[in-house]
């Protein structure tokens, strides 16, 4: 088994601020994902990474940057926080792109 850790659990920022969310996994999985979950809108893919140093844009990448520093970690940066993007950000990982995805508990973003 393994676990996905997301930090921080709650993130409060000011409008226009640059904010970074972090994700660590100890599954030794190759592929990692960042999703945004808005109430009533399901999960939308922001970025994913097939392997270390790889980066692929998802459907919602505008306004975000991501970095796969090493195999076990994947960070997401909100380049300029906006009030309409208050949501829960979920990190996930999978052995390969076609395998089951395991999710972390999420980071809840609030923008003041």
């Amino acid at each position, binding site marked *: 088994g393994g676990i996905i850790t997301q930090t921080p659990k709650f993130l409060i920022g000011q409008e226009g601020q640059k904010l970074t969310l972090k994700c660590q996994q100890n599954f030794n999985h190759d592929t990692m994902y960042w999703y945004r979950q808005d109430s009533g809108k*399901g999960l939308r893919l922001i970025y994913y990474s097939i392997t270390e140093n790889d980066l692929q844009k998802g459907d919602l990448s505008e306004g975000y940057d991501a970095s796969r520093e090493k195999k076990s970690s994947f960070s997401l940066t909100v380049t300029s926080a906006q009030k309409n993007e208050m949501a829960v950000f979920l990190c996930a990982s999978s052995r390969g792109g076609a395998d*089951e995805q395991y999710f972390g508990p999420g980071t809840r973003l609030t923008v003041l």
Partner: protein
Amino acid sequence: QQQVRQSPQSLTVWEGETAILNCSYEDSTFNYFPWYQQFPGEGPALLISISSVSDKKEDGRFTIFFNKREKKLSLHITDSQPGDSATYFCAARQQGTGSKLSFGKGAKLTVSP
């Protein structure tokens, strides 16, 4: 365009009843359909999945019924328990290709004791 649609958005059943959550999809190339269960404050977790070569998949009290011709599937939860109260997401993709998962908007199930 919403590739995966779920209905109802919310459902309340009594303990012991069967809860039925529906899902439909647009892309006829989708052939793998996982259902995820999410409790408040937690990330989604894979509950049960089906591939398009099957029309039924059972795991304990959870059963997926799949109709390829109509591009519809449903999750049946028999003998519903209060602990089943959660949000359920239907998802879809092309199996084995590493393509992205498309998620529905979710269905909130409440099981009343």
